[in-house]
């Protein structure tokens, strides 16, 4: 009789629990979108979260591990507490210290609730048996205990600090950008130890052969000329009137930002547009006239067919080069890379066409690429520094198979 009553009570409660749990899993799945877990932990065409492609860091290669709930090769033996501690402090199951290529210095700002939701989702992912040798760093960096010292110098567990003087929208944007979204992992310059330089937060940084541009509101190199709408459109579709996402950002748009909600994208835009930065606004010295003349000829013979004689481009198909943020960065790495290797726009529901730029590495010598980029960076109101043929040679070498 007692058992029957208990059973009936259970029956009554279970659907409620299940609904709560489903809700938590869905919220957790959205945290995985914000955090772009798949961006690193899923191989292109591979099973979700079963391990990714190697990350080439300045210190050596790290392979994003299998984080499916597989007991042998994934994180099936982890407890929620293990997961929470890893996200907050970079110390995982059995006290294993993670390398900060895993952006726990950003994830540490996530709320306990969001981390708990994310864990609820992680337990529902299909377990995949795939052994990943994550640590491929050279000695002595391969000693994970070294991260104890690194953390001591560079990291402290933190929570997101809301600014009560700012709007709820601004604070939501700040929370996403500094926390789960971990924008600074690519866009903030690093110290020689690979830690974020907080004084240059989001002002642009070089990594994996790409230069992640300044995304503060800086008028010249940052988002100063972009409206909030422009920022939202870019993150949602990968393209706006100023730029088309390429390289790692194209992947971030595909896996993460294009799946964020409109209010969250708006919040991110409001926050990024509020970030001031006054560095890098000096007008670059006037480029050498002979190089500009050669660059103009190269531009008209190779680039103007799509980007137009005046650099204005053509809507969402061919990006404008006037005030383009990739053109405007002090570091020409991404620009050189796009000219040498080509680039393809990302596929999103909002912009499904995926126009691509062809590789010009076979046709243009280093000096010619340098001259045409110097011309583009010094024309139509653009004022970014000249590019040297050594800059191009370095990128070409990196691209060589």
């Amino acid at each position, binding site marked *: 009789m007692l058992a029957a009553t208990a059973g009936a009570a259970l029956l009554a409660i279970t659907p409620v629990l299940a609904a709560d749990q489903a809700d938590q899993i869905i919220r957790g799945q959205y945290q995985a979108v914000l955090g772009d877990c798949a961006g690193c932990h899923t191989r292109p065409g591979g099973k979700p979260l079963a391990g990714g492609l190697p990350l080439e860091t300045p210190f050596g290669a790290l392979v994003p591990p299998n984080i499916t709930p597989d007991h042998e090769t994934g994180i099936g033996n982890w407890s929620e507490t293990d997961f929470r501690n890893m996200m907050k402090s970079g110390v995982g199951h059995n006290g294993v210290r993670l390398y900060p290529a895993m952006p726990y210095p950003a994830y540490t700002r996530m709320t306990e609730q969001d981390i708990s939701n994310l864990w609820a989702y992680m337990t529902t992912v299909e377990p995949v048996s795939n052994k990943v040798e994550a640590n491929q760093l050279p000695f002595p960096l391969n000693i994970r205990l070294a991260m104890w010292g690194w953390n001591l110098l560079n990291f402290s567990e933190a929570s997101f600090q809301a600014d009560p003087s700012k709007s709820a929208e601004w604070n939501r944007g700040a929370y996403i950008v500094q926390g789960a979204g971990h924008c600074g992992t690519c866009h903030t310059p690093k110290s020689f130890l690979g830690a974020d330089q907080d004084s240059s937060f989001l002002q642009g940084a070089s990594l994996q052969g790409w230069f992640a541009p300044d995304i503060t509101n800086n008028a010249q190199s940052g988002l100063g000329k972009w409206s909030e709408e422009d920022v939202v459109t870019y993150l949602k579709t990968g393209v706006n009137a100023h730029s088309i996402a390429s390289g790692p950002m194209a992947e971030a748009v595909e896996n993460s930002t294009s799946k964020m909600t409109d209010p969250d994208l708006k919040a991110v835009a409001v926050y990024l547009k509020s970030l001031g930065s006054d560095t890098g606004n000096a007008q670059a010295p006037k480029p050498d006239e*002979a190089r500009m003349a*050669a660059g103009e*000829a190269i531009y008209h*013979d190779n680039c*103007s*067919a799509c980007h137009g004689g*005046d650099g204005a481009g053509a809507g969402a198909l061919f990006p404008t080069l006037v005030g383009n943020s990739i053109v405007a960065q002090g570091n020409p790495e991404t620009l050189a890379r796009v000219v040498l290797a080509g680039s*393809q726009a990302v596929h999103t529901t909002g912009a499904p066409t995926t126009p691509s730029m062809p590789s010009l590495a076979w046709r243009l010598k280093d000096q010619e690429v340098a001259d045409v980029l110097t011309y583009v960076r010094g024309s139509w109101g653009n004022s970014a520094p000249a590019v040297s043929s050594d800059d191009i040679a370095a990128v070409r070498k990196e*691209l060589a*198979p």
Partner: protein
Amino acid sequence: MDRHNTVQLSRRLFLSSVAMFTVTATSASFARSLSGSLPWAPMSSDPPMQVVSGGWQFFTPQEAALVEAIVDRIVPADDLSMGGKEAGCAVYIDRQLTGAFGTSSRLYTQGPFLPGLPTQGYQGEANPAQRYRVGLASIDAFLKQRDGKTFAELQPADQDAFLAAMEAGKVDLPNGVKAPGFFGLLLQNTMEGFFADPVYGGNKDMVSWRMLGFPGARYDYRDHVSKHNQPYPRPPVSIEGSPEWLVKRS
């Protein structure tokens, strides 16, 4: 007794036609629908191999001397342009004969070989490489017997007269070579060498394009399409580039 009208619908024929229909219907349902990005890879390109002049890959020195003398009469040096030899027409032909053109590797080359109409072009069994080898030898043999000289040793007026006679079919070349047909091949290939992109070995310094005002390997003229009756302002550009791309220091 007209058997074409008496196909009987046997049980076997009926079944196989049903099977055929099923196969067709099933394959139709396998039509692929592509979604996501279009196929693309970084650093991908398929540019033509750039011809480097110097040396001969197909011609013997004797053949090369003959072809250079001929292309220099088909495109003589004058006020308008350099001659065909200097423009690299013989180099162009030499490299083409070692490639797919020379061996007809992209054409159907099996029999039957029947005489065609004049509009049908060459219908014989030999590929261009074989036609050049035999044709050039037969010109040498013919002139040696008639004049005791090679083509290159003739006066320009005599060279022109001989080529005109070839074209008109008034020369009986040995080894069964039909003079008008072989002259047509030489003329065609010389023009190709003179007017094609310099990347293929001829049209040195884009000489023919500069002569004509042809803008070269460009593919978009939006900035100029509404400028009627104005000459196009930019110098020509080759697949291999342009001298305008060099930084000029005075």
